[in-house]
């Protein structure tokens, strides 16, 4: 937990996208560097249990990135890769994102706004190619319901409409 943990929010403003919001206790320029420079990204994106073993980033329009997380004690390696389609330092970056073994890709638009002095509001819009894929994400609430004796299924289904 950090002072900004409570600002984490996930919403679905339309049929094909998911919006993730989070605030951070630094100015946008610094958050931008933490998100786009490998030497900084490595420090927080990976950890001992799930280290970032590959971190290749060519942050310019048309450049590519690839991250691979490898569990030291497990069989699992999870890779994600994509391209940088728009790069407007330090406010806005548009990427494609494809996880190796998951449905995709998505187009991710990340916007950093100054919420107050020394505070950044991040808005990450993840847009999927179709509604079915997005609804798979939304279905999590629905499936939670199934896992817990169905009590939340109705609400989740209503949310899907």
């Amino acid at each position, binding site marked *: 937990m950090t002072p900004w943990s409570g600002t984490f929010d996930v919403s679905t403003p339309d049929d094909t996208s998911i919006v993730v919001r989070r605030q951070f206790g630094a100015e946008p320029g610094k958050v931008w560097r933490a998100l786009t420079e490998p030497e900084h990204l490595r420090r*927080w994106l990976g950890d001992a249990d*799930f280290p970032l073993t590959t971190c290749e980033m060519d942050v310019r329009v048309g450049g590519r990135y690839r991250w691979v997380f490898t569990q030291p004690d497990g069989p699992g390696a999870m890779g994600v890769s994509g391209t940088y389609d728009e790069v407007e330092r330090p406010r806005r970056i548009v990427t494609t994102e494809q996880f190796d073994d*998951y*449905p995709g890709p998505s187009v991710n638009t990340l916007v950093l706004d100054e919420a107050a002095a020394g505070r950044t509001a991040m808005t990450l819009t993840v847009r999927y190619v179709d509604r079915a894929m997005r*609804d*798979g994400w939304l279905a999590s609430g629905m499936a939670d319901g199934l896992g817990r004796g169905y009590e939340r299924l109705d609400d989740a289904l209503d949310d899907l409409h």
Partner: protein
Amino acid sequence: MTTTLDPAPARDGLSLVFAALADPTRRAMLTRLRRGPATVGELGAPFAMTGPAVSKHLRVLERAGLVTRGRVAQARPASLSAEPMKQVAEWAAQFREFWDQRYDRLDDYLRTMPDEPEDHS
């Protein structure tokens, strides 16, 4: 707390589940099946749907593994099957938790990360 990401369920399987869930009629059928098994006639009644139309939706749900059909006489009542939904849920929940934790780590890192003049531009 440690987050691990299990190997993904087969992409095709998840895609079938997603496609099945994308239709509001099928979601309503799943809601109905939550109360217990139902026949084609019972499932179609709220929508004034024909038997073949209901069966078509049921086949999509069956292919995705969300519904099983009984072998009882002609009625073949449909029942909800939770496993595929749990797989989707686990996938999404793990992913969400992963990012929630990573953003906490980013917060912590930002506190120790050296400033640069350009940060304030």
